[in-house]
């Protein structure tokens, strides 16, 4: 084996070998003594007396410490006295608590004899990697309300001695919006900490109670969290709306093969004072219709006449196009232009309308005047209503009613509630007595209700029907077994037919085999008969009977159900000749549905069905349908909110070609308060002017601006340039104009003095919108981890730092040859915050927008091929300037050794 091979093997096998070359005149350097230790640990190193001094009568030693390492015991003295045997020196040293992982030069031991010969033994310590990462942050947040938005501060603390790269994973309750204020992948230097915030949006539908948010850190390849902090979020009620009216103008464009249509409108909504809100919409009619109107509707650009409301928690007054249900016997489905009012308090309820009817396209005249008042007392609810409703023109014979009614509903008597109404109704067909009676029984394990009503004139006189009979009941036979039944019978006349009768009944049960599996079985039948009002068509009707059985399975966020049905359908039609045509056919079907909600990927719904019907009733033999919908899939565009919904449905009916409907919808929040909605749809049922189906594309852009009155604003705050970087406002520090400050959903822009005011009931921590700061300014880092709500918000001027790394020769003259790309360059400020440099070249790292101040330049060479050393440097960042720093990097000394000779020859490896 040649020497060169030996050297190659030595270099390849042993990283960080030693030199045997004298570095100082008169001193000979010997192989390095290497030992291993953990921070804060004690390490014993045995330093042999050099063989060259084996025969020297007297030898002294001297220990020179490097890098602040503490050596316990004597640092100089005789190593051997004349006549005594040669024994190695034993040194004990304490590994510094702050020692980074890797090789550290800790000391040099110099041995001398009387003749002045000197031998230097370098001592190196291999500091073991200690990984200690944890995440800390908010443990509890109480008194939250549905609809709140809040920022929760957290920090990752690396108490270890090596740089780590971790992923931040946030798991919130289902359907809660959570967002990180920085990239999820974070590099944390040794003994450094990184602050971040999680923005949480509490949904309006959030249940009252405690919810848990889990913030974890994971290694880049690991699946199990390294550390997790659980934050309890206690919801105690609904969010009070932030004061101030939101004005939201929007424009939309829809494009189809029929052409394009545009839309513009303004929506106004929001509280004008505590407990009083307004809502209005100004959306001019769209000139074009058809497919383009479908496209506009898909992005929420609905054209509607003017309507406005002012409302509180228990009342509302509406003007413009409006509707009202006065009472069952004095007018329902009262729709028109005018003014309506509704008040509902614990003590009473009142409703009123004054207006004229409105119709789709034809002129309709008439009057809509009516109202009612009901008072709640200990003896029940007593009241009455009166109406004068006349709708002339439009389609059919029109509707008309003059009525007065008295109502009574008893308080709960044991488990029963009784109700009765009596009315005098005057309609086109004459006068009559109307009545309604209800009886309801309710207990935790059973419920039943019966309602009978008679309203002369029916739907032609603003009633739901002329005669109604409804019975519903359900009962728990055991904890796992429920049965229910219902019977309904309705008779009406309406404005189109001389009579309509609908009868139906249902009897079913639900049995829970296991907590997650249930079996259902239901028998049901319905019968519908229409009596014609003229000679154009005859009477017709239908009857359906079926037995339906199914199984439901639910586990966690996954639900699956299957349902099969067997029955028949009958169709009756009185022909033009007067003959009655009646056909009956068997019908059976199978339906499968599955739904899965994902914590991070929205929800997925699938359904498939097949239905077979016998011939003769006008239904194709086999109808198959399949659908899929993937909704509200969150998308990440930086810190902006966006979601995506897509769905498709396939249907095949008999021998007809399969129809495929596809839809996609994207919603995204853009900068400056803009919201973008984009929709695309292909629907064979919607056709252009040439009768062709095609794609419908639409886009809508809206911008929300909140307008406040002075009384709605809270105390004045200030955004200031924190010249002394202490985080506190001093009189000499100037304000910063044009900065957007947000708190929850509210925002304000600072005036020319840096002052701002946010709504008094805005919740959450005030934070600076970094995008609104001028170049050269940055929010003070302490705001990121602020636990307190502050009004005065400091910003810091920034500068830039360009670090040039340069490899230089070590004491032995060896110049390392390696790539510095894997080196991590960091600036650490006086409070421990770290900035990681952006690599802009093989040897260059740049720090842009770093707050002014003094920083320590640190490196991490864990991924560099060979250990390197860098001297500590302090870097001063000055406002709006780029500070260039040169960082010399040295290699550690290398020890070359010759491995023992192999017993047998062979090729060198």
């Amino acid at each position, binding site marked *: 084996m040649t020497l060169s091979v030996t050297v190659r093997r030595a270099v390849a096998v042993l990283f960080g070998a030693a030199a045997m070359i004298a570095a100082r005149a008169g001193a000979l350097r010997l192989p390095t003594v290497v030992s291993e230790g953990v921070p804060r640990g004690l390490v014993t190193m045995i330093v042999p007396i050099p063989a060259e001094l084996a025969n020297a009568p007297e030898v002294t030693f001297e220990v020179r410490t490097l890098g602040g390492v503490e050596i316990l015991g004597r640092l100089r003295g005789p190593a051997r006295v004349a006549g005594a045997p040669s024994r190695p020196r034993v040194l004990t040293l304490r590994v510094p608590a702050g020692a980074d992982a890797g090789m550290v030069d800790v000391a040099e031991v110099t041995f001398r004899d009387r003749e002045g010969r000197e031998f230097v033994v370098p001592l190196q310590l291999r500091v073991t990697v200690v990984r200690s990462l944890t995440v800390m942050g908010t443990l509890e947040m109480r008194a939250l309300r549905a609809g709140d938005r809040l920022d929760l501060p957290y920090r990752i603390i690396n108490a270890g001695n090596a740089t780590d790269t971790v992923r931040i994973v946030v798991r919130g309750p289902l359907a809660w919006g959570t967002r990180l204020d920085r990239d999820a992948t974070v590099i944390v230097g040794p003994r450094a900490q990184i602050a971040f915030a999680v923005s949480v949006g509490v949904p309006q539908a959030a249940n009252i109670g405690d919810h848990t948010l889990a913030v974890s850190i994971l290694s880049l390849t690991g699946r199990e969290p390294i550390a997790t902090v659980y934050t309890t979020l206690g919801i105690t009620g609904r969010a009070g709306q932030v004061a101030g009216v939101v004005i939201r103008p929007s424009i939309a464009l829809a494009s189809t093969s029929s052409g394009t249509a545009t839309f513009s409108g303004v929506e106004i909504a929001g509280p004008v004072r505590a407990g009083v809100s307004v809502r209005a919409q100004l959306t001019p009619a769209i000139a074009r219709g*058809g497919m383009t*109107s*479908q496209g506009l*509707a898909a992005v929420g650009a609905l054209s509607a*006449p003017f309507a406005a409301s002012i409302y509180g928690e228990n009342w509302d007054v509406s003007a413009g*196009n409006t509707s009202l249900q006065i009472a069952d016997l004095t007018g329902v*489905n009262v*729709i028109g232009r005018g003014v309506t009012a509704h008040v509902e308090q614990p003590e009473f309820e009142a409703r009123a309308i004054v207006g004229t009817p*409105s119709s*789709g396209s034809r002129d*309709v005249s008439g009057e809509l005047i009516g109202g009612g008042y009901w008072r709640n007392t200990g003896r029940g609810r007593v009241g009455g209503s009166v109406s004068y409703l006349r709708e002339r023109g*439009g*389609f059919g014979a029109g509707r008309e009613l003059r009525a007065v009614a008295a109502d009574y509903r008893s308080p709960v008597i044991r488990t029963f509630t009784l109700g009765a109404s009596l009315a005098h109704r005057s309609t086109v067909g004459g006068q009559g007595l109307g009545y309604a009676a209800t009886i309801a029984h309710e207990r935790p394990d059973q419920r039943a209700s019966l309602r009978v009503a008679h309203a002369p004139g029916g*739907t032609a006189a603003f009633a739901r*029907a002329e005669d109604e009979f409804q019975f519903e009941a359900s009962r728990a036979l055991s904890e796992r077994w429920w049965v229910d039944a219902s019977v309904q019978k309705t008779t*009406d006349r*309406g404005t*189109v*037919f001389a009579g*309509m009768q*609908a009868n139906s009944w249902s009897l079913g049960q639900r049995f829970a085999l296991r907590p997650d*599996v249930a079996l259902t079985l239901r028998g049901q039948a*319905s019968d*519908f008969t*229409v009596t*014609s009002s003229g000679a*154009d*068509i*005859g009477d*017709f009707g*239908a009857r359906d009977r079926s037995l339906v059985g199914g199984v439901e399975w639910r586990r966690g966020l996954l639900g699956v159900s*299957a349902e*099969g049905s067997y029955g028949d359908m009958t*169709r009756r*039609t009185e*022909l*033009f*000749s007067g003959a009655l*045509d009646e*056909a009956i056919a*068997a019908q059976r*079907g*199978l339906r499968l549905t599955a739904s899965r909600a994902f914590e991070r990927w929205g929800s997925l719904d699938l359904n498939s069905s*097949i*239905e*077979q019907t*016998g*011939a003769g*009733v*006008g239904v*194709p033999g086999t109808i198959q349908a399949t659908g899929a919908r993937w909704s509200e899939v969150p998308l990440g565009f930086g810190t902006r909110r966006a979601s995506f919904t897509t769905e498709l449905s396939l249907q095949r*009916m*008999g*021998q*007809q070609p399969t*129809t495929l409907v596809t839809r996609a919808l994207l919603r995204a929040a853009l900068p400056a308060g803009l919201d973008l909605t984009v929709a695309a749809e292909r629907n*064979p*049922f919607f*056709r252009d002017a040439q*009768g062709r189906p095609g794609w419908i594309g639409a886009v809508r852009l809206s911008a929300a601006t909140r307008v406040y009155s002075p009384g709605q604003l809270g105390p004045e705050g200030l955004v200031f340039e924190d010249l002394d970087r202490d985080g506190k406002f001093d009189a000499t520090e100037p304000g910063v104009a044009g900065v957007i400050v947000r708190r929850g959903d509210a925002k304000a822009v600072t005036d020319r003095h840096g002052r701002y005011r946010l709504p008094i009931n805005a919740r959450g921590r005030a934070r600076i919108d970094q995008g609104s700061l001028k170049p050269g300014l940055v929010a003070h880092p302490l705001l990121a981890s602020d636990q307190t709500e502050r009004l005065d918000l400091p910003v810091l001027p920034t500068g830039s730092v360009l670090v040039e790394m340069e490899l230089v020769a070590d004491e032995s003259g060896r110049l390392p040859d390696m790539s510095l790309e894997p080196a991590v360059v960091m600036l650490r400020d006086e409070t421990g915050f770290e900035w990681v440099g952006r690599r802009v070249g093989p040897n260059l790292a740049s720090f842009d927008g770093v707050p002014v101040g003094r920083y320590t330049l640190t490196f991490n060479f864990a991924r560099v091929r060979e250990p390197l050393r860098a001297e500590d440097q302090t870097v001063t960042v000055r406002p709006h300037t780029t500070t260039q720093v040169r960082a010399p990097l040295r290699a550690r000394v290398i020890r070359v050794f010759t491995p023992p000779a192999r017993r047998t020859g062979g090729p060198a490896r």
Partner: protein
Amino acid sequence: MRPARWLVTLGLLSACTLPGEPDANAAIVRGEWEFTGTQAAPQATITGYLTIQSQNGDLITGTAGWEERDGFGVVRSAGGTVSGRVIGEQDVDFDITLDGVSRRHVGRIRADTMDGSWVQFGDGRTGSFRAVRARP
């Protein structure tokens, strides 16, 4: 019986075919129709198309789509599949299924026009319709 066996049994049941007798004397309504109509309460107008894509004896299938303008002036588009029967030469009886809800139309055929009334089971909506043949 285990749930899987239920599904298999129901699947086999659904695979069976059912008998029927087509009417060979039915009027031919296959083709494109301009479709208009009204809704009584709440009032609305309907403007659209009716396409009978296939007619096998008395059985007709196709698609329909329209624009519905209600009393508030709000315009909505709707569309769905058509299935029904032509009974003899003068009577037509078909369903238009909109988002799973059937709307039954019964009318008279007079040359190239169908006139009649419709009712939507379930919510009791009613109205009239007219279909005028656009092209066969």
